[in-house]
């Protein structure tokens, strides 16, 4: 507590600059990697391998004229991009980059705030981020942004449930909501000697749900329905330009980095890793290195997804979320809770492993039979038109319905 003032400022700055730099590199890397996947070259003019392209783009956005369309709802229209960026930056506050660092006689962890309820903080900031997209869509007062905003909010709220349940199994398994406890719990495996105790292994279904959910939550391809260029022009940010559009872009890429950092922290041990018996003076760098490597792996995964997969259809996206991911995550919370409860009762590890294995098989059976069958049912089965009948006492809402009625009448 009695640290000098520069310590918290230093912590905040280091984390902020680190994530900002990773985001900038991501934007460049994405363009290069996707270009390579498509047999193009990608940006290669500014700096070595075009690495400074992001800076130039940023400068362009700052100096671009930023007109405000006349029909927009102004306070909300201006606030919306800010909300996204702020929520993105706030959620990284609880993620540790590394362990304790000693500088100028002060020892402190490389995290802005190790909250008691750090896990919930991440989820809360994710849910605040929905407002950005949603309000941008609404306040633009234009059809495409509205459609994009409504789509994305429904998508984000749905996948938040799946993600929250996946995180719940981590919390139950670790027995704490504090991020540093969760990382400490993954230091060594309780099941297999000498292996890292990454939660991704015992909680594999939850891990899977979280990884799929985080792509949807970040609004990235193949789940970028909110800004589907082919159908919605640009989605929620159609009416934005200049730096305000830039802020949406920053928030989106920021989200990729944040989500990668969160999944690494919750499931892959965060900064845990071998130290090779190095002296403490050098060893503090290693956790940061491990964390960065794992995170970059996930960022790369995001980029590959974008390059490799076509956009998912919206109704399939929703049925995947509600009918497959949420049940799996829910069942795995129960399995995890049972496992933990048996451990508290003092049941031997082997018995627990057998029980957990049986439960795992059960979930797998559920996944193999029910899941895809339902998903297929949502799309392949010839279905009746999902178009609702207009309420009889209401005037026809649009030309579509009017035409509909004329055709039905004769």
């Amino acid at each position, binding site marked *: 507590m009695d640290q000098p003032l520069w310590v918290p400022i230093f912590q905040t700055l280091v984390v902020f600059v680190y994530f900002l730099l990773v985001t900038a590199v991501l934007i460049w890397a994405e363009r290069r990697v996707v270009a390579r996947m498509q047999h193009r070259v990608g940006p290669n003019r500014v700096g070595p391998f075009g690495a400074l392209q992001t800076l130039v783009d940023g400068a362009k956005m700052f100096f671009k004229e930023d*007109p405000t369309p006349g029909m927009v709802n102004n306070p909300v229209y201006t606030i919306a991009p800010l909300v996204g960026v702020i929520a993105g930056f706030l959620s990284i506050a609880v993620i540790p980059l590394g362990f304790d660092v000693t500088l100028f006689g002060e020892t402190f962890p490389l995290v802005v705030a190790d909250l008691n309820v750090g896990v919930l903080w991440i989820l809360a900031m994710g*849910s605040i981020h929905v407002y950005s997209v949603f309000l941008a869509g609404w306040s633009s007062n234009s059809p495409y942004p509205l459609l994009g905003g409504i789509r994305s909010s429904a998508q984000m709220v749905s996948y938040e449930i799946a993600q929250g349940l996946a995180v719940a199994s981590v919390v139950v398994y670790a027995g704490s909501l504090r991020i540093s406890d969760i990382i400490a719990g993954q230091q060594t495996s309780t099941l297999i000697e000498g292996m890292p105790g990454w939660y991704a292994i015992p909680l594999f279904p939850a891990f899977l749900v979280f990884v799929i959910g985080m792509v949807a939550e970040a609004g990235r391809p193949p789940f970028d329905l909110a800004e589907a260029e082919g159908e919605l022009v640009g989605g929620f940010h159609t009416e934005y330009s200049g730096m305000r559009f830039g802020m949406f872009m920053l928030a989106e890429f920021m989200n990729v980095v944040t989500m990668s950092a969160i999944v690494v922290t919750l499931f892959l041990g965060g900064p845990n890793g071998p130290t090779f018996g190095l002296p403490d003076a050098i060893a503090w760098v290693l956790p940061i290195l491990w964390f960065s490597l794992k995170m970059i792996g996930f960022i790369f995964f995001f980029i590959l997804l974008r390059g490799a997969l076509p956009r998912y259809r919206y109704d399939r996206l929703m049925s995947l979320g509600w009918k497959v991911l949420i049940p799996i995550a829910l069942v795995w919370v129960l399995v995890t809770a049972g496992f933990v409860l048996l451990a508290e009762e003092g049941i031997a590890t082997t018995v627990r492993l057998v029980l957990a294995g049986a439960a795992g098989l059960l979930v797998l059976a559920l996944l193999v039979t029910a899941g895809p069958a339902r998903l297929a049912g949502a799309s392949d089965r010839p279905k009746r038109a999902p178009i609702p009948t207009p309420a009889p006492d209401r005037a026809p809402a649009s030309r579509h319905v009017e035409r509909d009625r004329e055709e*039905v009448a004769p």
Partner: protein
Amino acid sequence: MELLAQAAEGAGGANLAEVVLFWVFSVLAVGAAIAVITLRNIVHGALMLVLNLLAIAGLYLTLESSFLGIVQVLVYAGAIMVLFLFVIMLLGVDNDDLLKETRVATRFAAALGGALLVAALLFAFVGTYTSPSSLCGQGTGVVAGAGEVLCVGLAEAYGPDDRSGVAFLGLRLFTRFVWPFQLAALLLTVATIGAVILARRRDLEPEDLDVGVADPDALPPSDAELLRADADAPGEAGTDVPGEEPARLGASPLAGSDPTERGERPTGHDRPSDADRGEG
């Protein structure tokens, strides 16, 4: 004021930051609450409700209940209000809905309901939590509810292993308060079932299919629905006639704003949204 002083004393001496935060969040909460019912634009009102909920989360945080504070943000501000706004934007709000209620009976009933609510809250809180006897120093006994309880600090009540108070809260919820907890769950279930019944729609017969949409299967229900609203919109969104606002396109951002505000729109852009689309 006495309570506040007591709270500050309980925290180990008068903590200036706590008092300042208390006032900031309280003023914010009350101000936002007033704005919720006075703002004409219903979406602005809902956003003020979000601000109000966030301010209350801040109050929880100053009371050192970090779990409750974050859950407030997560559940109320993050989930429930998003659904609120979602419904407002999806269904849209006609300008008629924003008119003042003029029927005397309704206004009387509203006043009566408000008065009853305030009375119930005052009855529950005044005396129980505001009288000097409710003040309780560290380690002294006080009569509250079922019997005398010993006043302990938050850390002591939580126990050594439970820094965020989650275990404490969970235990209380599933033992002492299990009855209200179950009642609340029942209430939510009933509300959900009611909503499902109200929202259920009859599907069209196959011969009634709308041929306007090439492949109805390719569209989810919500989009098909939106498409109907959408068909109207491009023409209307660009017009500058105040009477022809795109009210049906969800809740228009301009719905409910007063006419003077509308008159101040830049007249140079006759069709602003069209012009922008051309640019993009």
